[in-house]
């Protein structure tokens, strides 16, 4: 079976803590993602996301605090704005926008993190590997 590769950019305060809670609650989910912990989702530069696709990711997950809950006041709104803009560009790069997922997952939502990882893995499985012209050319 196709095993998609997922890069997860998680904020320290909410989503990474939620992922930790999934662990302490011993929830089980698919091992297709590797988490990279940032202080805030607003540290994610659209370039990091494009780089992840370039380097072989089939999907990218951004995890931040729920609207109104950002540890840095409004970092998650900036993230949302940046992702909305990036979504417009992804098409031009030949990347299905569904391969980029933005989720608000709080420190209390271990179950949500596990569900998102499972769902996203399944979705990417059905889409198959990302074929990226830029990547092919580089080869």
């Amino acid at each position, binding site marked *: 079976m196709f095993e998609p590769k997922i890069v997860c950019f998680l904020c320290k305060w909410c989503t990474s803590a939620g992922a930790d809670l999934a662990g302490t609650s011993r929830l089980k989910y698919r*091992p297709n993602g590797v988490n990279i912990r940032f202080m805030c989702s607003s540290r994610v530069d659209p370039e990091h996301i494009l780089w992840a696709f370039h380097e072989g990711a089939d999907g990218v997950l951004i995890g931040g605090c729920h609207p109104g809950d950002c540890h840095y006041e409004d970092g998650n709104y900036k993230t949302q704005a940046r992702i909305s803009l990036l979504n417009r560009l992804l098409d031009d790069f030949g990347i299905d926008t569904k391969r980029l997922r933005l989720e608000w997952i709080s420190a209390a939502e271990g179950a949500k993190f596990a569900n998102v990882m499972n769902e996203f893995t399944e979705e990417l499985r059905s889409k198959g590997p990302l074929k990226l012209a830029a990547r092919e050319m580089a080869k």
Partner: protein
Amino acid sequence: MKRIGVFVCHCGINIAETVDVKRVAEEAMKMEGVAYAQDYIYMCSEPGQTLVREKIVEEKLDAVIIAACSPNLHESTFRAAAEEAGLNPWQCEIANIREQCSWVHTDREKATSKAIHIVATIVQKTKLNESLEPIPVSITKKALVIGGGIAGIQAALDIADSGHKVILVEKESSIGGHMAQLSETFPTLDCSQCILTPKMVAAGKHPNIELMTYSQVDEVSGYVGNFKVRIRQKAAFVDWSKCNGCGLCMEKCPAKVSSVFDRELAKHGAIYVPFPQAVPNKPVIDKDSCIYFKSGKCRLCEKVCEIGAIDFEQEDRFIEEEVGAIITATGFDTLPVVDLAEYGAGEVPDVIDGLAFERLLSASGPTVGEVRRPSDGMVPKEIVFVQCAGSRDPERYKPYCSKICCMYTTKHALLYKHRVHDGQPYIFYIDIRTGGKGYEEFYHNAEEEEGIIYLRGKVAKIFRDGDKTVVWGTDTLTGRNIEIAADLVVLATAVVPKDSTAELVKKLRIQTGPNGFLAEAHPKLRPVESINSGFFIAGAAQGPKDIPETVSQASAAACKVISLFSRDHLEQDPAIAWVDEDLCGGCRICISVCPYDAREFDEEKGIVIVNEALCEGCGSCVAACACGATQQRNLSDSQIKSMVTASLGGV
């Protein structure tokens, strides 16, 4: 090239069961930059830390990676160990292969492969980590305690006794919280008033405590040691500096309002103090019920107040304060009876909750301690107590145990028997949980000596039939269905977080757990701290707990605050933004995204600088910077890119 050491922890079997730790160490050894790799059963133990320290020296390591549990748990432990061995603490990184790997996966091969990728990712970060020095920041040695129940009172008193100033903020007009509503307390049957009110008075009089009742925290900004808070003191429409508490206004007020304190079993005027032992003992006018505010006529209270303390023009007051630490002790509520459809949804008058029964038992309550039912004031001859009303019911209500109900229901039944000797109490229970000093003995005495009938089973339905309240239940020990036509039913409703908690945590930016109670930094080792430094938690706001436990937790939280205040200065994480002056074009986009005004345009240089004292290190400006001039220390774009590549197995 840096020499990096990788130390892979087994965590007993917590990691080793799912992840092949030896293989992780072997693979780490092959990674560029890694000069040493080793696994060990408990890396956080003394021998484990010694191993790390020794290898730093022996192998001349420039940096170490501990592949173990979440950095939230032991990052500071290992950074301290690395520092002892001569490394800069920022040359120590944690690879989280437990919470985010071994505990959440089952396939050993896949989990091991993921753990290797996690380590590879952190290796890439570590390669480019700089040695940093913490930024010293000053500390305001004044604490804010939110919530004036027994937890907040105890915490405030302990901090104040250590010589530090405390602001104690309480939403209601008096401190005391739920404990002030209780009659007698288990298992010693001390009168709640007798043990609480002296503490309330002490808190009210303490020279180091500034009591701000009828107040709420409106806004919080800043960080540990240097918080700025804005407190809203609601208009009481009474000038408390003039009021002498004579009470004449309350006597004369013609309005009738159900008393929240008395669980709506009594009424008071629109101008009222919640209970006679209130601290401060000053009345407030409930604007929504006041006849003058509603119709423009009355002002009777004003007429009878000889000293002119009534002030209908009074407005909410806002007070700005600077504090160094914040304790949240906002307590609990109980699940409203109206939420329990099968128990009459609040429509059956003689179905009340535990707190209402406390008021019936209380000598200062609406019935002066006589047990009389709400519908007709009759002394009930048969009372059914229903435990776990909304607790331990994951399908419909709350999944957790409310912890205090087994004990207080036993106490209720016992006190009822003491008041009504020929009365018969029945208690429906799922399990009796009496973990606590003297608790089991208390329960046994009640069951064996006091004639309380315990029925093991859940109650299916409660409804009114004539003047009786009928309870249908099942005794699961005999397998028989039971019907009791009772005179009064008391529900031990689930303990829930206060409604206001959700809003408050947003202002404080602290976390709650899945059931809405405040989340602690670690359930066992850091039970009174929030993950966010400078925030501490105490009492039932963190989860259901009884008075002794609440008081211990409050003292523990106070102790943490005092320990914080014992330092001369605090250290701020230096992993913040910095600017490459040669690259910065002065476009100022960064200024527009910074939530802390930490980016400033330097007119002379024509670039935007970072004010290190204000930068919190969120990294938003780094992502916004169009030319890559702004970078985050130890999380630069080049670090992130190589981490991404490594996470995908590309290095």
